[in-house]
Every structure is written in structure tokens, then in C-alpha cells.
């Protein structure tokens, strides 16, 4: 038996720190404190059958390693259309899908952030994929603008449907808008083969800027970047 000064309560058993607040306990002089030879434990200490956290961490690391290895190995194989086959396509497809699943699971509590992450990831992977298949610029022409445009709509829908608090989403909404303007850059630099998708995406982003609440974004930014 000991006493927690933080909670001002007695604590039964041989805890060194308060199980509620973590404050170091002071022993009570009734012979059953932490110093006594055989403290009476109110509950049996039962060994863990497994540790879900450990299992998940190991699985996560192993699968991340496999995904990274999959992407890296592709570099060693030929980067031409002829050297590409259904086997490599499904291999990379599986690795990408798994990566998306991991992000979706990790960020399931904040869907706006998950959306922003997914946009960046899909953009990078498709550009890499395009490079591996001999660079036809389909990623920058189609994939990136379409994904960016969709994400702007997705965040709008999410905020409505989930009735999110401004603090939880404004930054990500702003981020998707910023990313939505990136295809415009591709267009200016002449990296795309057809201008229409990039133009549509940029138009969507600009339209979104006009309806979004800039002041809230700034307020949230100043809060997050506060020194």
C-alpha cells in the first residue's frame, strides 16, 4: 500500500508509480508498501499472451521493406516498353496498393490528411512508373491532374459528410489546392502531351480558392507554425 501525492489517494499493490497519473508513490507505513518483503497484490499479474502493438509493428516494417525493395528492384530491370510485362506490372501494382492501404489505415482518423498523403504518393508512384516504362508523360498529363482534381472534390465531400472541424481540415484542403495548381506548372514547362486535364484541374483549384475561407487557413497556419 502506498500513496499518490498527485491524486491524494491510496494505491494498493506494489506500484512504484501511480497507475493513474504516473507520479512517484510514497510508501505508507502499514507493512505492505513497496519496501516490504511480500507486497499484497490485489490482482494477479498475468503475463501477456501476445502484444498486438509488437505484431503490428513487425508486420508494418516487413511490408514496408518489401514495398521499398520492390520499387528499388525495378530500377535494375530494363526501362523500356518491351522490357515491361504483366508480371512486373502486377508486382508493382500490388506493392503500390499495399502502400495505399497502409496509409489509409494509419490515417483513418483524419481522412483529410489521408487524402493529401494519397495524392502525393499516387503522383510520385505514377511518375516513377512512367519513367520505368520509357517515359511517355502519361503520368503528368493524365494521372496527376486527375488525382489532384479528384482530391479537391474528395476533401470538400469529406468535410461535409463527416462534419469536420475547421482545425482538422483547412490545412489539408489548402494543400490539395496548392497541389492542384502544380499541373499548371507542368503545362507551362511543356511536360504534358494534352493540355486539357491540367487546365481542368487548375480551374478546379482556382475555383476552390475563391470559395475557401482564406482567413481560417491563415489562422490555422499561424497556430501550427507558432514558435
Amino acid at each position, binding site marked *: 500500500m502506498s500513496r*499518490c501525492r498527485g*491524486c*491524494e*489517494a*491510496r*494505491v*494498493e*499493490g*506494489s*506500484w*512504484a508509480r*501511480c*497507475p*493513474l*497519473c504516473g507520479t512517484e508513490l510514497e510508501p505508507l507505513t502499514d507493512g505492505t508498501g513497496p519496501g516490504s518483503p511480500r507486497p*499484497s*497484490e*490485489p*490482482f*494477479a*499479474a*498475468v*503475463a*501477456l*499472451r*501476445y*502484444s*498486438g*502493438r*509488437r505484431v503490428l509493428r513487425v508486420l508494418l516494417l516487413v511490408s514496408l521493406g518489401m514495398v521499398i525493395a520492390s520499387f528499388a528492384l525495378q530500377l535494375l530491370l530494363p526501362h523500356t516498353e518491351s522490357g515491361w510485362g504483366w508480371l512486373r506490372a502486377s508486382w508493382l501494382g500490388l506493392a503500390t496498393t499495399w502502400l495505399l492501404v497502409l496509409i489509409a489505415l494509419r490515417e483513418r*482518423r483524419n481522412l483529410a490528411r489521408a487524402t493529401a498523403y494519397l495524392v502525393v504518393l499516387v503522383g510520385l508512384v505514377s511518375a516513377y512508373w512512367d519513367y520505368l516504362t520509357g517515359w511517355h508523360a502519361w503520368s503528368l498529363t493524365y494521372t496527376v491532374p486527375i488525382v489532384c482534381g479528384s482530391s479537391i472534390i474528395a476533401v470538400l465531400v469529406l468535410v461535409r459528410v463527416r*462534419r469536420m*472541424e475547421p482545425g482538422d481540415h483547412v490545412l489539408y484542403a489548402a494543400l490539395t489546392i496548392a497541389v492542384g495548381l502544380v499541373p499548371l506548372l507542368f503545362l507551362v514547362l511543356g511536360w504534358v502531351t494534352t493540355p486539357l486535364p491540367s487546365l481542368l484541374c487548375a480551374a478546379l483549384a482556382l475555383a476552390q480558392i475563391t470559395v475557401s475561407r482564406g482567413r481560417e487557413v491563415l489562422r490555422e497556419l499561424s497556430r501550427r507554425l507558432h514558435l
Partner: protein
Amino acid sequence: MSTRAWARLDNASNIFLAARSARDPKVFRLGAELDHEVDPALLQRALELTVDRYPLFRAVLRRGLFWYYLQGSDKHPQVVADVLPPCAPLYEPGHPGLLFRVVHHGDRVGLEVFHALVDGTGALWFLGDLLAAYLRLRGEGAGTDAERETGEAIEADASEHRGITGDAFRHHFRRRRIRDRAPDPARFARDAAPAALRSAEELASLVSTGATRRGGRAGRDAGGAGGHHRPRVHRVHGELTPDLRPRTVELSMPADQVLVLSRAAGVSLSSYLTALLLEGVRRSSGGLGAARTLAVSVPVNLRQFFPSRSPRNFFATVRLEHTYAPHEADPEVEVDLDELARSLEEGFRPQVSAEALAARLRRLIGLEQMLGPRLVPRPLKDLLLRVVNARVNRTLTLAVSNLGRVRLPEPAEAHVRRMMFEVSAVRPQFCAISHAGVLTVSFTAPFVRTDHVREVVRLLVARGVEVSVAATRVTEHELAEVGV
């Protein structure tokens, strides 16, 4: 082969099978702390004697095409040391075993029961008789022969009700009472509807089209609820314990000190404790945000309205809600605890009158007697109940359960220092029980952190209550401290 007694699973129990999960195996534990180290051999003999008087506790659970059913068995329950986490699973589909276990640890005896078998009151009867038998075997209370005989006479009288065929639900709420109430195993135990009455109502609206959802939600802060908008219910999240065992924190305190507080507020002890828990959650939430409504599910023992001596599940759950004012979403803001308790009590009272409960239950039983739902195969029923249960879970923040003041049969009463009561839970929950002037409130949740309990303790201490804390060890670090 002998013809074994069997009974379709009673009214309230099926939800426990459907809602079972790794996090919440629907097991509860009743415990008693004795004034000496428990003698396992004597406890074993006492258990054998007690089980003979409660044939229901010999039952195993089997699966039929349309229903689960309880079947008598010859299994011999064994007293075991406390080697599993509290409220470890008891029912495994396909491996019919007994639905309860008796454990001992130091001076504590624990009775763990799968909730589909009996409810807290039923288990309490069993534990009381078990402890009395144990202490008699130990030579306690042997002097008062007269007392013992009357005690046994009562038990003998009661034992016919404690068999496998005592379905209190059906007894009280059949539309047309059957005149002869001779036990009729084949027609026994009408359809399973969820014990959580709200769940059953949800099911009713799923099954019968056109049934309108009933209102009747109490305790709502009319100002905060805002028009027809369904209020957003706050839900507690957190890091789960490593092997999904419940984190139990047991608070023991002098019952008088808390009773004085609840009387000063003009509410029942249950309402006061519920208000404390609500405040504990709010103060540890780090801001409620827009989800300012906290909803609590409370089981009500129906035996107090409709006398029954069956230990089978016989309770209804009511739901309480409290919506905090927008400025109270900030955990730093002080809220009047007494006011909160009174508002909870106001929401609670009308829901637990005998008439209100009887009306709800009759409607339920009527639904269960309809042929359509009864013809649904069991796996599909399970699935439906699981969906309903998940929907109900999303609208609940907390659960509370109070077994009240307990008097054990002699000689157990004199040798039990305090009693404990805890339930496996998917959401933060407390279970209260008081015995011999000691109130024990056990908080359970599948989460590692116990911030809401810390806040409850501090609220109690600030009001002059002497609190003693006992907690289970759940993380690797905590277990390493004691060398496990």
C-alpha cells in the same frame, strides 16, 4: 442416451453472443475479498455443493439452426488460480464448456460468468451461496444451526426456480398468460431479443417496415440539441492494451461519504457516480469539440419491478444523454456536478417506472412471438444483431452498472471485507457494488490510459472522499515491474 434438460437461450441473452469480440468477450466478474487467504481445496468442495443447487450453472451453450440453446451437462467446475486476465473469454463456438469459472488470488475469490448465462444479480446469488458454503465448510457460523437451516430451506425452495427452465421474461410478459406454468422445455424461452433493449428496438425497426423510430431519449439538453439534428455523440478512443485485456481500475471508498454527497445533490448514488464519470471523460478529453453529447447505457434490474427468482438475464437497458453547453466543451471549464447529476436523474426516472418498462417489454415479446423473425436462421440473426449492436455502439459513450448494496447470506456476510464487480467493455464503463459500508467502483476499458479515472478520483478526493486505487497491469513495462 439420457435426455438432457435444454432451453432456448432466453430473451436478453442472444445479444451477448452476437456482440462478443476479442476486446469484449461479454464476461463479467464478481469478486469478494475475505478476511483470510482462500483455501482452494475447500473452495472446490463448496463449489461442487453450490453447483448441485444451481443446475443452470452446469449448462453448456450449443448452436441450433435457429437459436442457441443451453443444455445441461455433467461437467465438473474446477476452482483455478487467477492465471488469466480478468474477464477472459468463456465461450468458444464449437467447444462447449462451462460458462463460468471460479478463481482465487490471495484473499480474493472471483466468479466470472459469460453474460448469456445469467446477469449480475443471478451471479451474485450464486457467489453468495458459494461463499456461505465455503465458510461453513471452514467451520464458520457452525454454532447457529437454526440460521443455517432456515438458510437451506430458502435455498431448497429457490432451487426449483434456479434450474435451466426459469425464464422470467416469458413469465411476466407473454401476451396471454399460460394458465399452467409447469416447466415445458420445448416451448420455453421465447425468441432471443437483445438484452440491450434499445438494440431490440432497433431490430424491430429493421424487421418490420414502417415502424417508426421511437423518441423517448432522456436527459437531452434541449438548448444544445438544436432542432432535428441528431446530436454528435462523443466517443472515447485510445491506445488498446497489448493483448486486448481490459484495464481495470478499482476504487474503494467508504459508502457513507459518497452517499452524503449524492444526498446533498438530491440524487441517487448511481446518478451521482454517472455524473462523476461523465465529468471524468469530459475533463480528460482534451476538448469535446462538436461532439458535446455524452450518452450512457444503464442496465436496470427488472426483478425490482417484476419479482422473479430466476438467475437468468432479466434486465433492460435505458439510455441517458447529456449535452454539454458549447463553452463546456473546454475541459478547463468547471461544471456543476450536482446539477449534472440532477439532470441525469430527471432523464432516468421516467424510463424506469414499472409501467414504462412493462410497455416496452410487452411490445418486444410480441415481436419475438411473430413467426417471421423466428424463422430466420441463427447465423443470419447473429449478423443482424451484430449490425444493430455496432450501430448502437456508435451512439454510446459510456456504460454504467450498479448492483447496489449487497447483503450476503451468513456466514459469508461476516467474513467478506469488500466486494468487487467488473465487466469486459468496448467502451469505458464502471460497475459499482457496495458491501459492509465499502463502495467499490471498478472502471474497465480496453485502453491503456486511464485519464478519465484519474479525473474521477480527483473529483472525489476534492469532495473529501478517501479513495483507494487498485489497478491491473496491462503493458509490458508494468508487468516487468513485478517480474512477469
